[in-house]
Structures are given as C-alpha cells and as structure tokens.
C-alpha cells in the first residue's frame, strides 16, 4: 500500500493523538512526540509499526503527537489517517480493522 497524499486524523486534546501521514520516497519513518514518552514511548512505536504492517503500509512519514491516548485510540487514528492518505473512503475492510 502506497501513501499518495498527506492526511491527518485526530486532535491534540488530552487523551487523544493526532496522526499526520505524508508520502515519502524512503522507508517508513515514525516521529513520536508523546506526553507519556518515558513510560509508553517504546510501546507506542511498536504499536504503530504493527498497525502499519497490518495495513501493508511500506513507506511514508508518520508524525504522531500523542497526549496520552490509549492504544485503541492511537490505532483508530492511525488507521483513519492511512485510509485518508490512500484516498480510500468506502468499502473499508472492517473485518480486519
């Protein structure tokens, strides 16, 4: 799956995360800015990698501003941003999400 356009999902409210995805020539790049980085940073990066892998995203720049979102929130924001970035607006594969 190739990221074709820039896309955003989420907010910077407390307990939410804002995900920005941009196309990139190089490999996957993840930039995490988290209010709970010391305690959950590595865990969140692993979660992001896994979620992107499940969506078959190979390249792109992913920037996340996390304000203490739970895993389910981060995953949902990421999935939304990815589908927006590939222009997919219908027929989402709900069974794998």
């Amino acid at each position, binding site marked *: 799956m190739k990221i074709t356009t820039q896309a955003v999902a989420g907010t910077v409210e*407390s307990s939410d995360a804002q995900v920005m995805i941009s196309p990139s020539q190089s490999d996957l790049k993840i930039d995490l800015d988290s209010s*709970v980085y*010391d*305690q*959950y940073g590595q865990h969140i990066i692993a979660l992001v990698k896994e979620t992107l892998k499940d969506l078959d995203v190979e390249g792109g720049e992913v920037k996340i501003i996390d304000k*203490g979102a739970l895993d389910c929130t981060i995953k949902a924001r990421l999935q939304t941003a990815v589908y927006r970035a590939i222009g997919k607006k219908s027929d989402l594969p709900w069974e794998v999400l």
Partner: protein
Amino acid sequence: MINSVGRDIPDEYLKNGVEPFQGIYYRDGYTYPKAAPKVSAYVKPTGDKMIASIRGAIIASGLKDGMTISFHHHLRDGDYVVNMVMKEIHQLGIKDLTVCASSLGKAHSYLVPCIEDGTVTGISTSGIRDEIGEVVSEGKLKNPAVIRSHGGRARAIEDGTVKIDVAFIGASTSDAFGNASGKGGQSDTGVLAYADGDAKYANKVVVITDTIVDVPNFPASIKGVDVDYVVKVDSIGDPTKIATGALRLTTDTRELDMAKEVAKCMYYSGYFKDGFSFQTGAGGPSLATTTFLKQYMEQDHITCGWAMGGVTEPIVNLFNEGYIKTVLDDQSFDLAAVASANEGRHFEISASQYANPFNKGAFVNQLNFVILGALEIDTDFNVNVVQGSNGVLRGAPGGHPDTAAGADVSIIVAPLIRSRMPTVRDQVTSVTTPGESIDVVVTDYGVAVNPKRQDLLKAFRQTNIALKSIEELRDLAYQYTGKPAPVEFDDQVVALVEYRDGTIIDTIRKPKSLN
C-alpha cells in the same frame, strides 16, 4: 536506610538527628524546647517603623550571605512580593541564601535566575512546580530542596529545624507599627495564616504592604510587637490572580459521579453525625462533594460543626446558609472566602493551629473527614502529590499529609486514569503521604478501602458503594493503559520529602530525561 514505606534514604541525609520515616505517630509525645528569635528591643519610643524601600529594609535587617529568608503564599499566583524582594537581594549581591517559603508557584519565577547564579542555594517549600519545579528537578539548586507540608513547615520553624533570619511578610494592610492583616486593602488575601510562625520566630520581620491604615490595624493577624520594619510599596500583588474569581462547580459527569460516591462514603462511615467536621480541597470532585453533602445534611436534619481549610465559595455558601456553624480558615482560595474571612464565625487560624504535629493538638487532629486528591496511589495506599509520573516536580503536599494523619476518615478522590497515566499503580514515583494514614480511595471505577479499616469496609458492604480492592483498581488501570515503564533517574538527589514530624519519607532524584 530503608524507611517504613520501603524507600531507601541515603545515609548522608540522615545526620544531626534526622531520622528516616518510621510511622505516622512515631514521634507522639516527643519533647523538645521551642526555638526563639533573637529580638532587638525597641525600648526608646522612636516613632513608626516605616522604611522607604524594600532595599532599605533588607539593609536595615542585616541580611548577609548564608542566611535564611522567608515568604508566605497568600498572594498566590498574583504575588509581587517574592520577586520584588529577590530582585533587590540579587542586585545587592547577597549569596547563598535559603528561602523558606510556605509555597512557591508561577508568580515566583525570579527565583530561577537566583537559583542559577547561587543567590539562592537552599529552598524549603510546600509547592514546587512550573519553572521552579523544573529548575530544581534539573539539579540546579546547590542543596536538595526540602518539601514540607503546611504543618511540617510550622513544626520546623517552632522546633528550630529552620531558623529564619529575615521574614518578608506581604500584607494587605498594615499600620506604621506593623500590625498587619489580610483585609481592608487593595489586594486582600483574607488571612495571613502561614506568616504567623514567621512573624513570631524570625529574628527580623519586615512587613510589606500597599495600604497603610491608621493605628491600630485591629484585628491584626501579624502583631506589631513582632515586626521590625514596615515598607509601603505601590502594589503587593495582582488582586485578580490572588484569588480566582469564582471556582466553578464542575459539570463534568465523571467528576460529579466521584463526588457523589465520596459523599456516600462520608454518609455511611459512621462519623456523619450532627456537629461533624470536615475539610475538602479545591479540586473538581472534592469541591463538588459539598453539593451532595448538603443533600445528606438536609435529609438527616443535621449540620456541620466546622469546616476547615483552604476555604472556597461553596464552603462559604454552606456557612451562610447555616449548614456549617464555623469556618476555620488557613487560606482563602477565592474572592468569596476572602470577603467572608474574619467575619462572624469564619475565623483565621495559624498554620500551626491548623496542622503542626508538634504543638499540643492541631485542628487536623479533630477532623472527622478530609477529602484529598492524588497524582498517584500505590497498592499500599501511599500517595504522591508532589512529583509528576515523568519524575519532574509539579505539585505540593499542602496540608495533605497533615489532614490525612489527623482525620478519622481520610478519603482520596482521583480518576483512575489521566491521559494514559494510571493513578493507582504498583509504586508511586515518590511518597508524600503514607498509606497508613489513607482510609478510602474513590475513583471513577470503584472505591477501595484500606484493609486496616475493617469498620469502614463492614459499613460500606451494606450499601451500594462500588467496593473493589486496591489491587483490582490497579489491574483495571493497567488493563487500559498497559504497565508503565519505570522512569529512569540519575543518582543526584534534588529534593527531600520531609514528613510532617521531621523524618525523611522520600528522596527525589533528577530524572534522566532532563540530562
């Protein structure tokens, strides 16, 4: 040495009679001579005590390198006094001072450059947050800061642990002889409770005011007989920031639910009887508890004997409506409290009367209930209200350890999770209030009772209070948040958390993230 809440206190901090924490009543019956100030007698009538400038008063006081100065925080975020005094001291080039403040916050940022260049090398405070919290967490203060509760500070002054050379007391009004009060000026604070010990125990006392009134300025919180100099300045503070206009009662359903549960715990505790006493904090759910308390009082036709604390508008309203007979005020939190302070049965009490463990019985010892907040709670019920989960100093013990130790029923109310940080957890980042003094923890996911309070457990089992064990609350939190990775710290100790009786309950180290 490992203390009784399992914290390792390095031996270098256990010298000259300083002991590790050994239980909340370890020093019951402790005998000691009270400290006393060195007084310069004013035998000859020489007129008033007015000095033209703060600089003049600093020079007259004889302030020198290595001395201890003190401030109070009744002016809260609107305080101009600390920065005004520190700027003059800075310019005079006096170094190596210890600042003994009742609390420090946003308004006291001029201490940051003073810490960085060695003007200030020691701090004793309750609140340590914002810029000062950061600079101390970074290890820039030469000596570890000493975090003291309000009662602990009063004790440290009275037992001589802290010897104040010069006290600078901002006052809303004063007469030319130093009779000073928190009422009747342009920047009213209501009370001057935290400055009481400073005035009585400091060698030199400087009152700084923006409103000089006729002699005698009675009733006077600070007595002229304790005051050396009076300075009039244009303004001691920004009245809009001294007290928040009106603390709004929360409309957040989660907070209201927790408040309702707190009131229910109070009601069914066995202590909810005519004439009961309580203290509540200014946080959302604590404050909202008053609403539900009022309903229970109406239902049972009882009234509250006295409420104490940081006084807020909801407390003043209950007092004016006759639900509370007497208010004991050690700090006026908002304009309604400021206006009501020292009127009728709304009395000012000193920090020592409020919470000092080393006098002959502070009011905290007579509290039936206290409702408190928490940043973190561990499975031994130990509470942290000083240090953020990322290791940076960002809070204040205030009267937390004092009221928890004194009250019959001490209730913590806090959401189980805040922006992914689990409140209930295996270990708190540092201990402020020992679990031994905490009875009930109310969260939005259930209520845990300290197993040592079988009486409360038994009473609550007959009700629909959602009881859970503290371990169940922790597991529930971790289920949502995941287990937090431990924050890494350097060896450098940046602050000591002193328990109210003078023993060391914890040390705070520099977080590695600040390197």
